């Protein structure tokens, strides 16, 4: 499985490392043409305003919507989750508007409030070490969205069909089980195509 990581800005190398530990092949994606060569796409952490601007500039908005419409899986972490959301609280314009959820940016506060913790995630048997950095939260989801984990009653991992989103950074630890989960989504999608 070739898994692309959108490489406009942010923690690209870490995702490639995790996906390769999970048994996939990681590819840095800088142009829309490269979407043809991959079976799944990761939208990494970074600054969502920067990533969103560059996505618009280079035609990624329509291209990734099309990619997802074709059933190929997309996984957004932190800024990537913001980019996936249909609705954003505050002034930022929504970007891909693919996932039926409302997201609040910097929901835990500033960097000094950033933290790591053990998190139970549906589909993963023991807790995952989750690193939250100026992290967003999923404030509300539609009926078609499955909540995979919560932290203090707030939604931090969710899945809607071929779309997966986490408000924390699974790529900053050596635990690649969420990447393995995503890789399996890509395998299933490819088997159904």
């Amino acid at each position, binding site marked *: 499985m070739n898994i692309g990581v959108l490489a406009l*800005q942010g923690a690209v190398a870490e995702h490639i490392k995790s996906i390769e530990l999970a048994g996939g092949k990681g590819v840095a994606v800088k142009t829309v043409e490269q979407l043809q060569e991959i079976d799944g796409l990761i939208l990494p952490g970074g600054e969502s305003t920067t990533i969103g601007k560059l996505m618009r500039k280079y035609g990624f908005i329509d291209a990734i919507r099309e990619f997802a419409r074709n059933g190929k899986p997309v996984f957004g972490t932190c800024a990537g989750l913001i980019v996936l959301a249909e609705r954003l609280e505050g002034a930022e314009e929504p970007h891909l508007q693919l996932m039926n959820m409302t997201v609040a940016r910097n929901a835990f506060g500033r960097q000094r409030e950033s933290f790591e913790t053990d998190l139970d995630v549906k589909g993963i048997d023991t807790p995952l070490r989750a690193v939250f950095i100026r992290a967003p939260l999923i404030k509300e989801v539609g009926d078609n969205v499955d909540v995979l984990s919560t932290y203090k009653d707030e939604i931090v991992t969710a899945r809607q069909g071929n779309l997966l989103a986490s408000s924390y950074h699974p790529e900053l630890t050596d635990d690649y089980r969420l990447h393995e989960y995503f890789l399996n989504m890509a395998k299933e999608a490819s088997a159904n195509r």
Partner: protein
Amino acid sequence: METGTSRVKRGMAEMQKGGVIMDVMNAEQAKIAEAAGATAVMALERVPSDIRAAGGVARMADPTIVEEVMKVVSIPVMAKARIGHYVEAKVLESLGVDYIDESEVLTPADDIFHISKEEFTVPFVCGAKDLGEALRRIQEGASMLRTKGEPGTGNIVEAVRHMRLITGQIRKVQNLSKDELYHEAKTLGVPYDLLLGVHETGRLPVVNFAAGGVATPSDAALMMHLGADGVFVGSGIFKSDSPEKFARAIVEATTHYTDYELIARVSKNLGTAMKGIEISKLDRSERMQDRGL
């Protein structure tokens, strides 16, 4: 639940990779920087070229400026404390800034000791011009590095020298034998364990940005080509003819630093870049890179 762990502090810098961090002096400039695609802003009272021109003692910015900037942007806000000035750093932490730059651009408060950064919840970035400085800052708790370059000159040559030196030294360390590593740690004046990490991984354990002299989109792309993880632009944007255009162009050139046609396109009709200074014309006492070793 743990805050201020090294993973959380270093991770924050990882999220800045491939991005441009811009110096701003007020809320209006901060908004221009964010709209242009900056991944963070550095809130300052004066940009380095003005500090250079003004002379005298340069200190932490007025907290009003920092707070004003924090209020108007959603991207992270950084601010500078003087080298060794523990209290300025604590004050910035209490304001809630997202990153502190213990910076040679300001006049050092301590000519021997840096701040012990480990004990802070907020992460620090520090300047380095060689591998020894880089690893010493990491040992003190820095979570991110940047080249020192020569701030406020608009001249890229020093940043290039520092980046090349650091990457060259890393390659050398990779090829040393165990017994040579002990000696190299002594020569560089760094802890053996950190040097061993560089030997094994072939990289620094934290991200390393370029800073100090970036004035054009091509300068930013050059630093990425030399292995920088991202770019700080100090005086280069708001001392240019058209800050908005320069800011946008530098962001694009940093993302696509190997796409030369794109860099050519974004470099067109930018107007005049900041006026530069030839390094040999600087008096030794005016070199900021020699502060904090």
